[in-house]
């Protein structure tokens, strides 16, 4: 253990030190150049490591993955569209797509709604009460989904009838005389996926609340006062005066959550590993890669995800350009 800690410290220092040395060398290199070139090239030297990292870990792999998606399981020979058609005609994969779509439809919208609700209500408390409430709701964001998995097993745990229930939900059900239910196995109407989504909501609503709360506090108070004097009720004030002014933040939270949901992996992997018809694309990708050792199918799944993100990407770029133009 002692040796482990020492080697760990040394590795960490070498890693961080190497990054500093890199820039020192790059800067020296630029200074050796004739001063005309120094000024021209220095910006590129400064952004070079960043773009090297992005190129190696996003751009090159994105292209490579597209290529792999048209090759067989060991990426040796070309198979055309087979990976895609094989996946899409499997009933299991269709269900995986439906589940992922359900996550995308439900989680971002509910995250925004709950976050906004808590933010608006907490805004009316005393500063100390508001701080406490926000901290409690925000805290799950610091918890990993592995940790969340250990936590939520005690909510959904199931024991056959007659045995003592150690899962909170079944304890409540049986206390009212009901039959215990294996919650995560209930796949009619994808209800078990809903139970997994609740875990993500639990982790995510705090993030939404914090951003929206800041936005609400940025709404000029006189616009609310003016509406109140004009005789608007609280609901009208909320929907016609406040919401339009924080719409930008609402979209930020929505898009951010949507992107996170499309890539969701850990919750499903830890709780069910896709069993009982709860599979999602992220988990299916992992299993194709490490259980089936099928590079081709795994790559095809990632390409589908990438294609699905293109509209969001276009939205982002347009949004950014508008912001720049306004600034």
């Amino acid at each position, binding site marked *: 253990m002692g040796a482990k800690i020492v080697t760990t410290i040394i590795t960490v220092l070498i890693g961080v030190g190497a990054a500093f040395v890199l820039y020192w060398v790059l800067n020296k290199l630029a200074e050796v150049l004739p001063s005309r070139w120094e000024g021209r090239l220095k910006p590129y030297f400064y952004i070079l490591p960043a773009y090297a990292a992005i190129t190696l870990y996003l751009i090159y792999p994105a292209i490579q993955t597209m290529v792999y998606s048209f090759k067989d399981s060991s990426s040796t020979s070309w198979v055309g569209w087979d990976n895609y058609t094989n996946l899409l005609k499997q009933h299991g994969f269709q269900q995986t797509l439906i589940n992922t779509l359900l996550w995308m439809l439900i989680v971002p919208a509910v995250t925004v709604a709950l976050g906004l609700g808590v933010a608006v209500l907490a805004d009316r408390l005393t500063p100390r009460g508001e701080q406490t409430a926000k901290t409690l709701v925000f805290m799950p964001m610091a918890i990993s989904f592995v940790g969340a998995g250990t936590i939520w097993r005690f909510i959904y745990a199931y024991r056959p009838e007659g045995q003592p229930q150690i899962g909170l939900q079944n304890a409540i059900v049986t206390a009212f005389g009901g039959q215990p239910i294996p919650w995560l196995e209930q796949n009619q109407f994808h209800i078990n996926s809903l139970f997994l989504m609740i875990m993500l909501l639990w*982790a995510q609503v705090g*993030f939404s609340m914090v951003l929206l709360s*800041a936005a609400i506090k940025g709404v000029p108070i006189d616009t609310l006062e003016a509406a109140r004097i004009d005789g608007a009720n609280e609901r009208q004030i909320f929907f016609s005066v406040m919401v339009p002014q924080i719409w930008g933040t609402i979209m930020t939270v929505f898009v951010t959550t949507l992107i996170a949901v499309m890539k969701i*992996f850990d919750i499903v992997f830890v709780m069910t590993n896709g069993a009982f018809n709860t599979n999602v694309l992220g988990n299916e990708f992992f299993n194709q890669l490490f259980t089936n050792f099928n590079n081709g199918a795994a790559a095809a799944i990632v390409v589908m995800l990438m294609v699905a993100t293109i509209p969001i990407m276009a939205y982002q770029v347009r949004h950014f350009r508008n912001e720049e133009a306004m600034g």
Partner: protein
Amino acid sequence: MTSAQTVPGVTTATPRAARRGAPKGGNPANAGWLTKVVLIIVCFLWVVPTFGLLVTSFRPLDDANNTGWWTIFSSPVAYLQNFTFSNYTEALQKAHLNIAFVNSIAIALPATFIPLLIAAFAAYAFTFMEFPGRNFLFLAVVSLLIVPNYVAFVPILSVYKNLGLTGFPTVWLAHIGFGMSLAIYILRNYMGTLPKTVIESAKIDGASHYQTFFRLVLPMSVPALASFAIFQFLWVWNDLLVALVFIGPGENAPITVAVKNNLIGQAGAGWNLVTAGGFLSMIVPIIVFLSMQRFFVRGLTAGAVKG
């Protein structure tokens, strides 16, 4: 962040609190009893799951297996006297979470600081230097923000295999690549709000870009740096997928992988050990989060605002 999960400030928004002049508790509509009751219920629902885990982590195997954690309230005397730390010692030693804990630190610290430095240099160039292709290159960063990191796993695994690269550097480099777009984006937006005149006068005084960066811009950017550092630290510490793919179970596994494989994945591990392991995996991010919450929130909200 959760994996972590989410990416803050992907789009710019959020006006800065403009209500500073307003009286305390600015909103004239004050909390009625209904508001308070609803909020108390929400907070209760949000805290109860974690509280149950904490309670169970101190219960011996028989208690944890045979009775719900809430029974300590119905018969506190009987159950409380059974409370023990042995779940923790057992999880640390038998499930090797002690080694995994050190591994998590070894992974998370460099994977936080290295991308921060690299992104800060790039953000500086984008904010304070003029060069052809600047706008295009920055737009590329914005659009790459949402490329799923799943793309990297198969190609990078084979790159690592060809290079013979193993251990911590494999995940450091991966997290540098995955966190880079967001880091550049947040830092550039923040640096854009710094007063240009200060930087220009430094230039007139003969300071080089290198000096201006380290002596002026970095210290002035501390709020944004801190916010990204916290975010990236939480993200890396809580990450399961990247570690699972590039490191896997074994002597270099971080705590998320160890809890998943040595405890959750083992049927015989017992619920008491799973909870202790779960809590051990959360303690660092929760402390970081609670002690730095102010920075984190400020960065999440103000960091994405342009001046």
